[in-house]
């Protein structure tokens, strides 16, 4: 029971880890690093929105808090990058807990919860834009100072492995939760909150745990973004774009599934990049492809890419279906 589901994770991680040996093009490596950062944010979202059914529209709040806390600690206080990242992730988790406490205690669900998270992210964006210690609208620029202790690397491959390491942690944590009692409670809350409560599940505490872990994962993405691009401002860190990226990837990949975010992120951005290569100089063609993929997924594969694969497999092998159902 405990080993269930780890094999595909290992496979995906191994392929990505070996990628820098096969591909030396920095174009590809840079692309993979960016998608891995998105994956991390999406893994955070998937835990709360996919497994727990609490669709957030404001994961930027956690992404941005991670990025800003790390940047402020490093730029203003000269704290080591690794320590700053650890503190920033804790801060992101704390923000997650606070937002969760305020909204879940008020009994907000569904679209109301989505709207409240969106509002929190927007409030943080405006505050970060106005406050002096966040650099205001000028943002925070980190010094380019390559070195292991600064979490900055000359080779894109090194950063890829770092990001992959964090994604691996995210995947393993997600799988552990999926296999655990807590995971089962979370699914119960998603499926029917009243029924879960009637069965003795402490709904508030389960949701709070989920949003805290979810926020921590997304905060890691914020920290990695900062270490990679070395510049953030309010619109990057707390912007709507990352909230959307974080929720689109699991939707496309397979909502609530452990591998959903990583598959979704690579599918979306991979198709975007591929269409850019194929269509050449037509500007915006990748964005059009991105949109087309979304429409197709929503229309024909509500379970995402993984859901579609599973459906196709069952259709061709009716025996497997019954086996799966009895399992």
């Amino acid at each position: 029971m405990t080993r269930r589901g780890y094999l595909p994770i290992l496979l995906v991680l191994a392929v990505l880890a070996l990628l820098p040996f096969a591909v030396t093009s920095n174009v590809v490596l840079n692309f993979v690093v960016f998608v891995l950062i998105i994956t991390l944010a999406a893994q955070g979202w998937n835990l709360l929105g996919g497994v727990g059914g609490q669709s957030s529209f404001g994961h930027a709040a956690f992404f941005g808090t991670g990025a800003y806390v790390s940047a402020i600690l490093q730029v203003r206080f000269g704290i080591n990058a690794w320590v700053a990242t650890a503190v920033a992730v804790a801060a992101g988790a704390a923000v997650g807990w606070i937002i969760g406490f305020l909204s879940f205690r008020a009994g907000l669900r569904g679209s109301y919860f989505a709207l409240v998270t969106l509002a929190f992210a927007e409030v943080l964006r405006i505050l970060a834009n106005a406050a002096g210690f966040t650099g205001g609208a000028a943002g925070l620029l980190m010094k380019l100072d390559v070195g292991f202790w600064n979490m900055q690397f000359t080779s894109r491959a090194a950063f890829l492995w770092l990001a992959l390491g964090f994604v691996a942690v995210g995947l393993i944590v997600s799988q552990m939760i999926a296999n655990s009692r807590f995971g089962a409670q979370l699914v119960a809350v998603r499926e029917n909150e009243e029924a879960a409560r009637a069965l003795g599940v402490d709904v508030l505490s389960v949701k709070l745990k989920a949003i805290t872990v979810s926020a921590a994962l997304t905060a890691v993405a914020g920290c990695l973004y900062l270490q990679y691009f070395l510049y953030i401002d309010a619109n990057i860190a707390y912007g709507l774009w990352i909230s959307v990226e974080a929720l689109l990837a699991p939707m496309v990949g397979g909502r609530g599934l452990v591998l959903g975010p990583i598959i979704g992120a690579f599918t979306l951005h991979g198709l975007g990049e591929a269409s850019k290569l194929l269509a050449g100089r037509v500007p915006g063609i990748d964005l059009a492809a991105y949109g087309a993929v979304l429409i197709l997924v929503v229309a024909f594969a509500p379970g995402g890419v993984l859901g579609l694969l599973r459906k196709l497999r069952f259709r061709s092998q009716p025996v497997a279906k019954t086996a799966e159902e009895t399992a």
Partner: protein
Amino acid sequence: MTLFMKPVSRRGALKGGIAAAAAIAAPSVLRAAEPPAVKVGILQPVTGALAMDGEFGRTGAELAIADINAAGGIKALGGAKIEMVFGDARSNPEAGVQEVERMQSEGVAAIVGGFASPICLAATQAAARYDLPYIVDVGVSDQIIQRGLKNTFRFAPGFAICTQAAIQNLVRINEAAGKPAKTIALVHEDGLFGSGLAKLMQTELPKHGFEIAETIAIPTPSRDLSNVALRLRSLNPDLVIPSTYYGETVLLARTMQQQRVRPKAVYAVLNGAASNMRFVKEFPEAAENIMDVNHWQDPRNPKNAELQKRVVDAGKQWNYNTPLNYSCVMLLADAIERAGSADRAKLIDSIAASTYDKHLMPYGPTKFVGGQNQGAAPVSTQVQKATIRVVYPEAFSDAKPIFPVRG
């Protein structure tokens, strides 16, 4: 029918074959005589929120490359042509970095462009990893040139130079008119340039005898500015200084027109619309007499009128980004010419030592200090009779300022 069925003789086939082989081989023989092209990366945001500006910039760079190639390419490299490698920065820094990586993999000698400060910050840094020379076109944030990156050069003036010039020009224009303006209302967008500018104005303008009646921050985007216009009407300031982007400036100007708010002048700084022909064309009445301190081409340079005609004839729009990017590419070509090589290290030294003065901007000869062109300066412009005129400094002006607009 026999015409097509006619059998081909062996000799005929041989002849044809040789002719075909020669025809295929000929271009490669010609090509071998030509030196390899120098690739230049042009980075502009042509999709997303900044698409309009990105297009202006791309047009300028394309025309410059076409002109260089038409004039015989880089002579020091045996007439090597310049080949453009275009990258769409999609209005965000991540896409900018991704395009820099692609340009690097395609082996460009240098990159020109970026437009927005966040894109420029991220892209120059990505280029610095490869010691790839990068000429920033607009990007006004002074952080761009304060990081000690050896590969980064900015041809246009930055924030500090622009604001200093804006205050100086205002004081001089006001003094020349007998100091009609005393009270000022600042309307600024709450982002990087708007709030930074407002803060600076609040401390600097009172030193020159002005009184700040009110500072109003507005978000971008804003859909309705009636309240702001009404507030301005009740304050009745002599001067309104809007530091806003295109949409909000247009909205503010039109709302002020509707509400009959008539200050003695509207004096914008680095404004998104006040130096944009689209605004002037679409809302000539609202735009009339608005002043701006901004990037603009040198109106006395006849090459600008010629270039503008080519742009308009091609059905494209003209804005300051066009001559600015044209000039940046020309400056780069001049640097390659002097370096006699597309080698990056040599090119960086060559750009750093540039004294290029055949550009289209109202700047003196180019002189880079710490990556910033010291010759660069903004100008004061004013919309007069539905065209944008340069009214200050006199050395470049093609019209006199109308100030105050209403006595």
